[in-house]
């Protein structure tokens, strides 16, 4: 039982990391109708900048702020140079161009930081851990990461639902031309959304740094999960991204933990050891398919 609680906590915390990435992605996708595959490399960029700033700018906390800001700026530069020319083009053009950005940025990162994985140390203040079950200590840092996810969710929900900018974002998501015709600077709105999205991805990258290895290509795995999250949650919806991120985090973690054991219990022999992981890694896609079958626009579609 206690193991189940621990695994649920792990799942929730993975969900929060996913949310930080999916939040930016869903806004960009929802508001700008822009498929940005390069969102994952912005996460990677954040992690690498975090490593560099932590070493040269006085530790984890300054690095968190600086890396998020620089990642946001880098997103704006990419928007200016490349993405701007893709708005209104077909999805295929967008996918191809942003895929090119992935390859290019991965190689640039390799040239600058080398191909060996790097380490980002945990901040001193959060490196403690507490006893959760016998023999297992839970790092405070992971709880803090989940907390940061909730905080960002509340903040974003407030901005999107309660402020003028948020109103424009919502309006832009449902009818771009109309908002433009009313005299709103759509280009500026897009840049703002894009910059914030890139910043959140960079922020997530720094936060993930102490838990995972910082290496070229680290964003790609997470990107696929983030797309699953925004499809389940409904494109353009922050609330949807939050709920879906928690669902995906929980299903993925609990699925891996429980299904493999269930498969071993039900079946015997070497087949069971293979079947479990195979089914477990399919699980979130099955959930996605089920959600889409019932609600084709996701759980909380941005209202048209």
């Amino acid at each position: 039982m206690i193991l189940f609680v621990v695994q649920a906590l792990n799942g929730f915390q993975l969900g929060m990391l996913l949310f930080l990435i999916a939040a930016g992605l869903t806004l960009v996708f929802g508001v700008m109708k822009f498929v940005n595959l390069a969102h994952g490399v912005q996460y990677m960029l954040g992690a690498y900048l975090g490593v560099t700033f932590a070493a040269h700018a006085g530790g984890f906390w300054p690095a968190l702020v600086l890396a998020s800001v620089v990642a946001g700026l880098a997103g704006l530069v990419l928007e200016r140079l490349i993405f701007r020319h893709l708005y209104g083009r077909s999805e295929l053009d967008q996918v191809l161009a942003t895929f090119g950005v992935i390859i290019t940025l991965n190689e640039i990162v390799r040239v600058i930081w080398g191909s060996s994985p790097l380490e980002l140390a945990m901040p001193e203040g959060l490196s403690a851990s507490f006893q959760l079950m016998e023999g297992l200590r839970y790092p405070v840092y992971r709880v803090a990461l989940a907390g940061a996810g909730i905080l960002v969710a509340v903040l974003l929900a407030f901005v999107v639902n309660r402020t003028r900018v948020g109103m424009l974002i919502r309006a832009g998501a449902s009818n771009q031309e109309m908002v433009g015709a009313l005299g709103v600077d759509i280009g500026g709105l897009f840049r703002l959304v894009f910059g914030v999205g890139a910043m959140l991805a960079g922020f997530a990258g720094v936060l993930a740094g102490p838990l995972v290895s910082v290496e070229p290509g680290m964003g790609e795995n997470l990107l696929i999960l983030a797309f699953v999250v925004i499809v389940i949650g409904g494109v353009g919806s922050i609330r949807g991204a939050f709920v879906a991120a928690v669902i995906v985090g929980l299903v993925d973690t609990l699925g891996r933990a429980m299904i493999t054991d269930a498969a071993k219990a039900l079946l015997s022999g070497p087949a069971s050891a293979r079947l479990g992981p195979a089914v477990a890694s399919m699980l979130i896609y099955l959930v996605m398919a089920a959600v889409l079958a019932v609600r084709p626009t996701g759980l909380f579609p941005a209202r048209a």
Partner: protein
Amino acid sequence: MLKTVLAGQIALVMAAVALAGGAEAQSLKVTVITTLTGPQAPLGEQIRDGFQLGLDTLGGKLGGLPVELTIIDDELKPDVAVTKIRALLESQKQDFVIGPVFSVVKAAIFKPVTSSGAFLISPNAGLSTFAGKACSPDLFVTSYQNDQPHSVSGQFATDKGYKRAFIIAPNYQAGRDALNGFKSRYKGEVVSEDYVPLNQMDMQSEIAKIASAKPDVVFVFLPGGLGINFVKQYRQAGLTNIPVLSTFTVDESTLPAEGDAAIGFYSGTNWAPNMDNAANKVFEPAFEKKFSYVPATYAAQAFDTANLIDSAVKAAGTDHDKLRKALEKADFASVRGSFKFGVNHYPVQDFYLAKVAKRADGKLQTEILSKVLSNDVDPYAAECKMP
């Protein structure tokens, strides 16, 4: 993507043409094919650097002959590797092809290379396929047969009397081979045999299962980023009381990213930087001086490969059949101390358990703890009938 491949090939062909133009009558044509792009590039770079150092210390010559060296990036894609190696072999016959890092690539390039009349010398990949019935007179492996490093941990766990083991590997063929390798010499009970997706980032779920199962020992084969994540998170979870045996999880290629969290982890291996023999005392410091990082087994095995070829060419010249006889003798000073070839051209060597420790200069390395297997012959060698 396509463009980079094409550009690479054009550059390669041009280099080959240039080489052919200026070639002397008596020179040795050697190609290193290894992985130099993608997440696994650090391993491929170790192979390239280890071989380069071997060549440099021999004055740029092998067996007294000047060397025309070509380096190919296989991109860890079997199809790309075959295309590139074929293009090279068709434009210019090679005496030796050295590589690759990964078994999937080896399986792909084996036929094109050996049928061209070149020797294929594998400084890392030790596929079981070519160790048994399908062993080949033109293939030499200077690393190990893939099962062996994993079985070291199994033997050690048995020797130590660990009764309950929790074992983890990625969910693909090499992962299953690794766990079978461990089990082949482990006599205790395997309480859980877990396979994780190759791209999994968070190992917290497996770590919670380990804490709950309370095994006597953990064995993991988690290469690259998987291992880095596992090692960091294992320490963060405070599971210090359960020893972790491993293969390719804590080695010099991943230690810089794992940091102090890796101290105390065990690794089954055939070599470590602190190994005490004359050849290694030359190799290890020279490598760090030249490349500014601590070498792992990949580099050591590639360095040995250069010296193996040197010894054979010195004794036999460039005649293919005489060279084979000379290679089989393995008459060189290995950085591993004792080294000889079995009937299947795979090494017969000692295996050790190493432990991660911090050196006086603050860098991390694995250090030999104890010898686990002596003159170990791989389990497939008996099936090999060399023609």
